[in-house]
Structure formats: structure tokens, C-alpha cells
């Protein structure tokens, strides 16, 4: 008798646990998908449909807003600038961040703790505070209004994450693997490229994507430091302010989609690879 009750209640708990699990998954998915879906609907609707009420739940595949953007002067240049700056940020933050992460995880040096703290502290200063002196400095050095100059700023924003992500990645790889490689004929460099790099590639990719997205979404420095070579965010911020609603939706869509496609394209690196990346 007591046995049956115990089993019943455990089935009950499992059922409600399962329900809670499914509900959480649905809620989290909705959290991400619903706004993007509405953005999509409104982008693919005629200006009249965007401004009308109630809303349709299905897009009417009206491409006029997007066509308008495609033909909009400077739009393509801005898109290209955004991609260029984001790629430069990605490469620079990994080139600078990964060795720092490696050093933090593998070597003991005085001031290590302070260094880690300082890295995080770089995010403590609001960008507007730095933008003006930076603008002045960039004008003096001729870096103003260039993709490289902006990428430098975005790199400083992305580096703390790159360092901390790669630090934990390197720490997750036992030093014995490297030592084994050294005894088997590797130098420090070849041990890194043959053993460590393949193992952390998924993580490096993740942190590169992170840097890409940080740069892609950054608007303040982009707006202050560029005039002719605006990135997409800065360009849209400048132009959409005074635009009608349907164009704002279309602009937002154009901003979101490339980042989504990029993450989708490299998603497999974000998941398990030889079972070590999914820690």
C-alpha cells in the first residue's frame, strides 16, 4: 500500500518536473523568438500594414521597406564598414586576448591577481567618458574616421571577455598534455599549435563571435569617432531617428540578421567537440 503511494507521488513529481522543464524551454525560446518574429513581420509588411491595428501574425512579403534600404545612399558602405570593423575587432581581440589568457592560466608572475582585476576594470569606465579624449587623440594621430581606429576601440571593449574566456579555456586543459607534447618532440609553440589549439578552437571561436557581436552592436563610439565611414549601427541611428516606423523596423531587422546568420554558421563550434568543449 505504502509502496504504491510512494510510486504515485514520485510519478507526480516527475510529471510536474517535466512540465516545469517544458514550460521553461518554451518561455526561454519565446523570449528570444517573439521579438525577432515581430521584427520580421513588420519588416516584410507594407508601410500601411505596419501602422495599422490589429497586427497580422503572418508577413505579407512586401519587400518595399527592404528595397528602400538597399537603394538608400551609403547603406551598403555602412554595412561593409560594420563587417570590416567587426572582423578586425574579432581578430585583434583574439590575437591580443588569447595569449594573455594563456599567460594568466600557465605562468605565475607578480601582480597576476591585480592584472586580472584591471582587465575587468576596463569595463568600469563608461564609453562616453572616454569618447571625447579618444576622439581628440584619434584626430591627432589621424586614426579618426577609419575602420581601424574604430576597431581599436571595439577591441578594448572586447578584450576583457576574450581574456577571461580564453583564461578559463586554457585552465581547463591539463598542463600534462602540453608537457607530454614537449617530451614527444614539440617546442612550446608547436605543442600549442598541435595540442592546445585544436582543443580550445571551439572556445576561441565562441569568444571570437562574442567580440564580433560586441563590435557589431556598439553604437556610441562608432557614432562619435566616424563621420564618413559610419558603421551600420551609427548610420542607422543617425538616419532612422527621423524615419517613419516601417523603416525603423526594416533597419532593426538589417541590424539583427547578420549577427544571427553569423552565430548560426559557427554554431557547431559552440557545442561539443570531442566532448571537452561542453563543460
Amino acid at each position, binding site marked *: 500500500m505504502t509502496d504504491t503511494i510512494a510510486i504515485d507521488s514520485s510519478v507526480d513529481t516527475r510529471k510536474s518536473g517535466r512540465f516545469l522543464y517544458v514550460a521553461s524551454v518554451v518561455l526561454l525560446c519565446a523570449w528570444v523568438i517573439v521579438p525577432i518574429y515581430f521584427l520580421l513581420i513588420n519588416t516584410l509588411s507594407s508601410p500601411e500594414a505596419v501602422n495599422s491595428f490589429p497586427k497580422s501574425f503572418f508577413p505579407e512579403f512586401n519587400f518595399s521597406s527592404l528595397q528602400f534600404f538597399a537603394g538608400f545612399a551609403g547603406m551598403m558602405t555602412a554595412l561593409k564598414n560594420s563587417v570590416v570593423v567587426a572582423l578586425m575587432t574579432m581578430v585583434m581581440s583574439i590575437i591580443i586576448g588569447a595569449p594573455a589568457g594563456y599567460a594568466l592560466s600557465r605562468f605565475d608572475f607578480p601582480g597576476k591577481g591585480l592584472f586580472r582585476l584591471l582587465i575587468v576594470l576596463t569595463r568600469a569606465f563608461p564609453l562616453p567618458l572616454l569618447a571625447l579624449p579618444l576622439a581628440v587623440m584619434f584626430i591627432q594621430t589621424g586614426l579618426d574616421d577609419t575602420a581601424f581606429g574604430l576597431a581599436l576601440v571595439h577591441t578594448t571593449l572586447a578584450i576583457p571577455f576574450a581574456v577571461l574566456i580564453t583564461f578559463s579555456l586554457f585552465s581547463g586543459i591539463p598542463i600534462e598534455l602540453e608537457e607530454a607534447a614537449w617530451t*614527444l618532440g614539440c617546442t612550446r609553440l608547436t605543442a600549442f599549435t598541435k595540442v592546445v589549439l585544436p582543443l580550445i578552437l571551439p572556445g576561441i571561436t565562441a569568444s571570437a563571435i562574442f567580440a564580433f557581436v560586441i563590435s557589431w552592436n556598439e553604437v556610441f563610439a562608432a557614432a562619435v569617432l566616424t563621420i564618413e565611414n559610419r558603421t551600420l549601427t551609427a548610420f542607422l541611428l543617425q538616419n532612422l531617428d527621423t524615419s517613419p516606423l516601417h523603416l525603423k523596423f526594416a533597419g532593426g531587422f538589417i541590424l539583427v540578421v547578420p549577427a544571427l546568420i553569423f552565430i548560426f554558421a559557427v554554431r557547431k563550434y559552440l557545442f561539443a567537440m570531442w566532448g571537452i568543449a561542453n563543460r
Partner: protein
Amino acid sequence: MAEIQIKNIAKSFGAYQALNDINLTIANQEFMVLLGASGCGKSTLLRIIAGLETASAGEILIGGKRIDHLSPKDRGIAMVFQNYAVFPHLTVFENIGFGLRMHKLPNNEVTQRVEKVAELMHIEMLLKRYSGELSGGQRQRVAVARALAMEPDVILMDEPLSNLDALLRMEMRAELKGVLAASKTTAIYVTHDQVEAMSMADRISVMHQGNIVQAASPIEVYRDPAAKFVGSFIGNPPMNFLPAVAKGSGKWEVAGQSFNGPRTDKAELQFAIRPEDMALANKGISAIAKTVEPLGAHLLVTCEVDGAMFRVVLDSDTVVKTGQTLTLAPQSDRIRWFELETTLAIP
């Protein structure tokens, strides 16, 4: 020829002295075991030989060539690590062939050598697998195969069996000993397990607090410990020690009994005897039995002699009751004597 000479090696980590002036010569093809409790410096010494750690002083020669300034890859060594260190992103085949590829051997020779050592280590059916698909014992085999494939002058092993379960460890112990003897390489093997050391070694170096206390054959280390530490560290149960007082002209009084001992001018010494080197007799040391443990093969009796703990191993048919007073006669040629201050053995 790969004789290893370790000359005056010392290592300090800040103020902590991990190794003091280590001198040791390991003969070509010898199986040397570095034995000691954790923190005695045995792993540090091995890592210095491997080039993974730099010595604070001293030099190391392999085959007469000084190698302590070389990087690990140029020392002609291969190493087996405690946690196997099998590369997770490579198959077993590529793991074993890793070193050979690094040395730019042609493909067919890599294949040939990998297959040879894989067969030797009985892992030829695992060559296509990744380390995540292997058991601990199989990973250990891969790690050993990877080291052997290099055909090194010297093979270094850092507690290679300590992560395996007891039964597998016993099996691997015998197998490893056979494989290494056949490979004709000089081997240095670090362990804290005295049974492993006794069963595998040609010679054991017992280490304690950054010093080599004794380097000798297993049976010599067991029978003639160079210091009190060795006697109490090796052997399970360990050696018994009792205070001895000089009675003049080589006579010593131990627990009320008179024994013939060394002729020195010391007033006191330590008398030592292994638990299995005693027998029940009419005349001898009286000991009060405190705990009686029948272990099947023999009977372990923990006694008290003048307030000191004293263990004796007797035949399993012996009947001993707790509280009983035993009269124990030590086998006279097995008695050892140690100095009190230096704790060193008196020959």
C-alpha cells in the same frame, strides 16, 4: 648506451628546499624506482630529468652527454604521466604516432612502429578510437605505447599506475616490467607504492625530505635499511624499533635482555627487527599482545614492549589471546642497529 648521471642536483621553490644535493648514477638499461612519501621530491627530480622543471644547481648527463640545459624534446627521453595525458583530439593511432610525426618520420615507418608497439601493449584493436572512448587501463596502455614508440634512451614514469584499481594495477605492474625489460631502455619510475617498487625495480632510491636516503636493490633496502626512516617506511608492517643501552664490550640491553651488538662508544642505540624475523621461544623479549589480527597467510600480533609498540608476524596456526604475554626471540642475523642522533644504520 644511456647511463644517467645526476650530479649535485638541488631545487628550491622560494625558501622551500625541495631537493638537496642529489647524486645518483643509473646504469644503462637499469630499472630505477624513486620511492618516497608525497612531497619527498621524487616527482620534482623526475621532472628535472625530463626538462619540465629546471634545477637550481647541479648537472645531469645521459649517455655521457650533459642534457640539463636542453629542452625536453632534445634529451632523448619519453615520459608517462600519472593522468595519462592522452591527447583527446587525436585517435589512439595518432597519439602513439605523435612523437614520430614530430620527428618527421616517413608515413610507412610511423605506421609500422605504431602497429608494433600497439601489439606489444595489446591495444591494436583500439587504434581508431579517441581517448574519451577508452577505459583508464586502456589509456594507460596508450600512454606507455606512445612513450615506447619513440624508442627513447630513457623512459620516465611518474606514478603511472596510481590511477588504476588494485587488480588492474597488479596486472599492469607485471606487464610493464616485462615490456620495459624487453625494450632495453633505461627506466626511472616514480611511485609512493612500496609493493610496486619492490616488485619492479632493479634498484630502489628511497627519498625523504629532498634527499636520497638509500639507493640499493629491493632486497637490500628491505634487509639492510641505511637509515631508520627506510626501515619504518618499507615493509608492511614496518620494522620494530626498541631502545638499547650499552653494557660494554659489544653487549646491549634491550627490553631486559642482553644482545650482542656493535662495538661503539655510544651509550645508547636503536635496536631494530622485522616483524617476521621473530619466533616464540622460552627465552627472549616479553611482549604483551594488544591486538591479534588473523590475516590468513599469517597472524599479525601488535604487542607492547616497555610501552613501545612492537609488531610480530607469526604462523597462522599459532593461538594468541589478547593480553597474553609472549616471549619472542629475534633471529640474531636479522637484528639491525641504528644510531640515535643520525638515525643511520651501524654496519
